[in-house]
């Protein structure tokens, strides 16, 4: 990279530290899942609220860290929910934070 390129990057307001390709891919996949499924805006937020309600009946979850996303591959579209648990109130467990993700626990993941 030439000196001029470095200078331009240094002065530019655009964040060059993070390559933007990954952001493009993730945003596209989400938008295309909405487009293809004809999903209404806000579907993810509604799902999030619904999932919290159901899970919270049985487990103590960390609501702020819930991550719900669509993943789109050529084979299928997937809904991936990552739901961190607060320490479960069971005597057997000795401290620390138990984490359960949808990928490991199938009942929390559903296909769209």
């Amino acid at each position: 990279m030439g000196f001029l390129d470095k200078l331009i990057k240094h002065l530019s307001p655009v964040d060059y530290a993070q390559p933007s390709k990954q952001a493009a891919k993730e945003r596209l996949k989400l938008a295309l899942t909405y487009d293809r499924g004809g999903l209404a805006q806000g579907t993810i937020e509604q799902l999030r609220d619904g999932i919290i309600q159901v899970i919270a009946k049985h487990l103590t979850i960390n609501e702020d860290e819930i991550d719900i996303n669509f993943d789109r591959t050529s084979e299928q579209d997937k809904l991936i929910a990552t739901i961190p648990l607060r320490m479960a109130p069971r005597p057997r467990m000795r401290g620390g934070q138990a984490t359960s993700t949808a990928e490991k626990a199938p009942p929390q993941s559903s296909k769209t």
Partner: protein
Amino acid sequence: MAGRVITVTSGKGGVGKTTFSANVSAALAGLGKKAVAVDTDVGLRNLDIVMGLENRIVYDLVDVVEGRCRLQKAIIRDKRVATLHMLPAAQTRDKSAVSPDAMEKICAELRSQFDFTIIDSPAGIEGGFHNAIAGADEVVIVTTPHVSAIRDADRVIGLLEAAEKQQIFLVINRLQAEMVRRGDMLDIPDILDILAIELLGIIPEDESIVVSSNRGELAALHAASPAGRAYKNIARRLLGEDAPLMPMDEDKSFLKWLASLFKGRAL
């Protein structure tokens, strides 16, 4: 003769459909095939000016549809390549002057006279799009590595599947190798992963395309242009030849990078 009718479409405007149609038609003609490029963008015609044939128009597509002249009379023969032809769109009418039925009839007639009929479609997914795909045997979707163009391409693929078009191919236009290398442009496997259709070709970003269209010349007829070489390779791939996806003498490191991407991929 039973030629092939190939529609070039994209959903989004400005991705290079017209330049692609003009240059691939020229490249096919340069390879000895009888080719005709058809402009279906009624009201916003541009294929004529990109091909440098804007001063030779007497009759147009709508004149043929409405029976004012025979198809033969509206087709312009290019003077640079003997087997290259162009059928212009009308400029003073709108898309409703043509119907899918009318296009099917015209395509059937062109199929019997030309090896390749390349149909340049308007931007959008309304009537003009449905006219453009009505008579197509194959469809080429032109996209760029930008999120907007890819999203629109996906929408168009859905519409083509609904219209029961079986042969759908992807062309990625205006790829900037340096931006891909530093991770700031979606690369080919990313785009193929998202759109999941067969890749026909890749065209690098090339300033000489602006120069060619300024002059009404066709890059595919000049050896010096990287994009022109990419168009020629696409024409050869359409003929079933094993032409490379990118021009041979591109930046070596880019080629190496590309080779690493395709290692183990069936393409």
